[in-house]
């Protein structure tokens, strides 16, 4: 049994944490066990009671549910609702959970039966339109990113444990990119969604000379119209911009506005809610 937690002489409860996955690549979960240098300190802050990727115990008695993945099957909806009932705090971990993530790209095709046939042939498999967690249950906190930065997860968990406010940056990635004094990718001739994407990743991609793909979703004042003009001025096509905007699902409402109408038939959307 680990020693009791305390901060400045005040005893703290170690929250019981369950980690769950839905439709995802498990990359966000992997981040939880990443960063060996701080892993023991991280694990010391919480009591893990359910984490398929890292342990065999399975308990339904947890305070915090860290939920990875999007919802793409009816049985996932039922399991998510159960987690919601058990958890005091339900955290959407990563882009799939927050926005649908890369998985929601399939929604672009409109005819989902055709998609299923293309991928699985005649193999019988349950699959429906990909939706974020918040379409089915109340989500208390979102940790953005594909994957989120481990440092950010550590900060969120520390703040939850000591009872400090958890706040995500509201400004866009450019702010961090400029603080790192990168040369702007537009100057180098590459597109970037940094001006409209929520910061917090420390401009991960631009730091490595890759344009942002918007995995963290929109910043709180995302001027998509102006970005469209900027892309055009720099010679990038509208589709090239839409490709990026659609990649992680965070900009779905902006994309719908840009395309002039929702791409998929109405009934596909409503029939999947229950």
């Amino acid at each position: 049994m680990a020693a009791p937690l305390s901060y400045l002489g005040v005893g703290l409860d170690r929250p019981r944490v369950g980690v769950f996955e839905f439709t995802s690549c498990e990359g966000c979960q992997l981040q939880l066990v990443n960063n060996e240098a701080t892993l023991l300190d991280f694990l010391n802050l919480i009591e893990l009671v359910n984490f398929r990727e890292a342990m065999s115990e399975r308990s339904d008695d947890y305070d915090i549910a860290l939920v990875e993945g999007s919802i793409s099957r009816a049985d996932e909806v039922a399991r998510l609702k159960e987690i919601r009932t058990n958890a005091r705090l339900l955290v959407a971990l990563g882009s799939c959970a927050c926005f649908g993530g890369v998985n929601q790209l399939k929604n672009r095709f409109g005819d989902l039966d055709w998609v299923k046939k293309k991928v699985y042939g005649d193999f019988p498999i349950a699959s429906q339109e990909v939706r974020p967690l918040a379409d089915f249950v109340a989500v208390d906190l979102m940790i953005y990113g594909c994957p989120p930065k481990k440092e950010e997860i550590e900060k969120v968990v520390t703040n939850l444990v000591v009872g400090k406010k958890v706040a995500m940056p509201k400004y866009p990635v450019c702010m961090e990119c400029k603080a790192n004094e990168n040369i702007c990718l537009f100057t180098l001739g590459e597109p970037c969604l940094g001006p409209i994407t929520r910061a917090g990743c420390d401009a991960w991609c631009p730091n490595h000379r890759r344009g942002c793909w918007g995995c963290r979703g929109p910043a709180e004042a995302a001027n998509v119209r102006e970005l469209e003009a900027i892309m055009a001025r720099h010679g990038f096509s509208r589709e090239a911009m839409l490709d990026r905007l659609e990649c992680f699902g965070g900009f779905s409402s902006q994309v719908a506005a840009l395309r002039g109408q929702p791409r998929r038939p109405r009934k596909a959307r409503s029939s999947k809610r229950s």
Partner: protein
Amino acid sequence: MIFATFSKKELPRLFDLLAPNTVVGPVQKGLDRAGRPLYDFDVIYRFQDLRLDYPTTIHSAKRHFLPHRESLCTFTLQGNDWEKQVDYNVYKPVVFFGLHACDINALNKLDKVLSSPPYPNPYYTAKRRNMFIIGQGCQPQPQCFCRSMGTDTALHGFDLFLTDLGDRYFAEILSATAYQFLQKIITRPPTAKDHDRYKEVVTERNQQFQTTVDTTDLTKLLDLEFESAAWQQWGDKCLSCGTCANVCPTCYCYGVEETVDLDLRGAAKTKYLYSCNLIDFAEVAGGHNFRPQTATRLKYRYYHKHRGFVEAYEESLCVGCGRCGEACLAGITVPDVLASVRALGG
């Protein structure tokens, strides 16, 4: 002011004499998409990396005296007791090799806020007091409008200022330290010919300015044009990204973040530079945002630079370096904004 001239061959020797300190100067940082060289300030280890012919830099030299993130203090916690550690982050004097007049004037402006009563900032002041500044004459770029802002020459705030006369430098010596360093290289007092050449070079340089800003009665104009439609027009374009403040040599706004270490045995207070264009710049405890509209935030950036600061210090908080306009992806530049406010308001 004491003047001297010295051969260009002496400059590497001066560099070597100063090299035991941290030397910061302009370097080339690759090429843009059209193959044009890009420059920025960085720590210089070899004289040949120094690019004194630089037109301008993408970012100002700010991170060397106002870092984007800086630890204000850390705490070591033990039981219910704690110990505070403060570090002004000054380890070695920093030599700034080749600052243009605008950037020297930017430091002079920052001094008025950050090194003066009532609240001198020890982190900034400690770094400022440990600087040795070598200024260098510039070639005005199309976006430069320092002449309109009265910051195209530096009268103080440097140790040594060099003007390129072709095969030799004309040096203005402003500090005893600079004088002593010049004793260690070969210099000579300037002749009448040097004076003439200096005046020629400076006149030639002054004829190259292409951009001007009409600052006549600007503070009053801004007061009158508080409701101008121009603000909304620029606000519609603005990305609320903070790039303008980040590249600006005089923007000093900041936030403070308090963090607890993962092992709960330490904590830290960290200062990070912020920008008045960011959506929550004027958000207060309880969640009320005094400036939720982008256009309002953009307007207040201009009000601070060109009105509020002028009323407080009788000078603008903009040195006309043009960096913000160059870096702004939405193409929002100070000359354009101020001209449109003047024109639309008429």
